[in-house]
């Protein structure tokens, strides 16, 4: 038992998630939620079994981390779909989750490759998975903002509001779980390294956009432009900071130490 049976669980999980995605695209909402919940249950079953087999929480190796990514992405997908009914969202979570499961199937050497000590935390996986999801929602909000700038449509603006609310909520959760993790690992909630600073700046710009929408509802153009600026800042936060000179000192530069 253990990783040897993972391909069976991964196949069942991916199949259920694909079925859920198709059902969502066909507007079969209840069936889609049931199928995606089942995919979460199947993968959770494997996590529980691995936990029992290893006799420790499976959070120490790269393979185990990718397993949690897959699970949290499916959970975030079904939660977002159940609440917001974005038809595309289950396809997105299925794709990302399946990518991580396929990597775990094709590269079994990662199952035993330990993470550096600071990354061996229960905060790590939700922190990353929630961020990934917020990036997706905010990315689609930006595309919708560009569309609205070209061709003004009220229903697009309503969709942007929904995407912005969901995306900003998840971004906030990602940022705060990171702060709690940093406190547990290093004793500091926030150390203003390059990535944290760009995350804070991005958060404040999105707060600016949400306040502009509330306080100046007719400034639609400025609102859409601010969303584009915020998303550019998000790109810096995500990968752009790696190219800054200050990144060498960043506590987020794990790959350089591993």
């Amino acid at each position, binding site marked *: 038992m253990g990783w040897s049976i993972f391909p069976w669980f991964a196949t069942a999980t991916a199949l259920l998630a694909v079925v859920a995605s198709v059902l969502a695209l066909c507007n079969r909402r209840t069936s889609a939620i049931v199928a995606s919940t089942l995919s979460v249950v199947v993968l959770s079953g494997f996590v529980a079994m691995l936990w029992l087999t290893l006799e420790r929480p499976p959070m*120490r190796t790269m393979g185990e981390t990718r397993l949690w990514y897959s699970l949290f992405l499916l959970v975030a997908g079904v939660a977002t779909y159940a*609440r*917001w009914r974005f038809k595309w969202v289950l396809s997105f979570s299925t794709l990302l989750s399946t990518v991580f499961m396929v990597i775990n199937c094709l590269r079994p050497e990662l199952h035993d*490759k*330990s*993470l*550096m*000590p*600071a990354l*061996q*935390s229960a905060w790590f996986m939700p922190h990353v998975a929630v961020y990934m999801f917020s990036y997706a929602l905010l990315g689609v909000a930006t595309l919708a903002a560009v569309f609205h700038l070209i061709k003004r449509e009220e229903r697009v*603006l*309503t969709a*942007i*509001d*929904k995407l*912005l*609310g*969901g995306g*900003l*909520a*998840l971004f*906030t*959760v990602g940022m*705060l779980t990171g702060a*709690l993790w940093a406190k*547990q*690992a*290093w*004793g*500091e*909630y*926030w*150390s*203003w*390294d*390059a990535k*944290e*600073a*760009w995350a*804070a*700046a991005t958060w*404040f*710009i999105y*707060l*600016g956009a949400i*306040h*502009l*929408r*509330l*306080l*100046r*509802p007719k400034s639609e153009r400025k609102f859409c432009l601010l969303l584009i600026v915020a998303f550019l800042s998000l790109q810096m936060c995500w990968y752009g*900071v790696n190219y*800054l*000179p*200050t990144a060498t*000192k960043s506590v987020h530069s794990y790959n350089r*130490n*591993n």
Partner: protein
Amino acid sequence: MINSSKYRQLRLGLLGVGVVLFGAQWLFGSFPIWLFAAPMNLLIGALWLVLVWEGFRRRTTLPIVQYLLSAEATYIALAVAAIIALVLGLQSSPQTTSWPVVGGFFYVLTVLSLVILRGWRNEGGVRWRFLITHCGLWLAMTSALLGAPDKAVLRAEVGAEPTREAVNEQGKKSYLDYELRLEKFEVENSENGTPQMFRAVVEVDGEIVDIEVNTPYSQRYGEDIYLVSYEKNSCILQIVREPWRGITMVGIAMLLLGAFLLFLQGFGGAKQ
């Protein structure tokens, strides 16, 4: 409402304060944060709260308070916070105690305080979410700003002999009111030699405790001991004293709750 010429004067006034803050940084160096350790920070915090409360009560006759409650002041506060974040992110050693940073966050907090006081009596569906998120941010930021002078980060090299000695971030020696002694140290290395797990068994005033990365030891409320590194026959422990930690945690918990509510209830946009 205040007229546009008053607005112009207030904007110039704010700009003038900004220039003074940069001037102070240039003339005196970093903000003397050590001068504001408890009880001074508590006194200043109380005085600031009284001024904000009094200002809010007299808002109809005070143009400065009307301005700080305006949409423009909110946008400026968020822009100031974003700019401070970016500037700190570009510095190799972030100057979190510079005059413009302290002054900028003080402005953000003052605007936030007034907005909370105004929103307290508002009716409407998202009143509780508004209060939870704004009060959470207020608590987290206030504890970071006013609590900074009371915070201490010390490092101690702990070996087989008991020690009370530690050094602060400026390299100044100080003494702990308890003894530390290394009982045992374990390291697991990967194939390429990088440490994958290290653990110290430490005697803290006679009590044997395990300290690992991500598993600090809480010596008392607001004082935790972290394992940060190790030498050949010793380990490096970091002692973090943070008396305002409880307030920060409540602030973060409220912000998390606010984020969950935003996810569940959604953002209604202009209709909200």
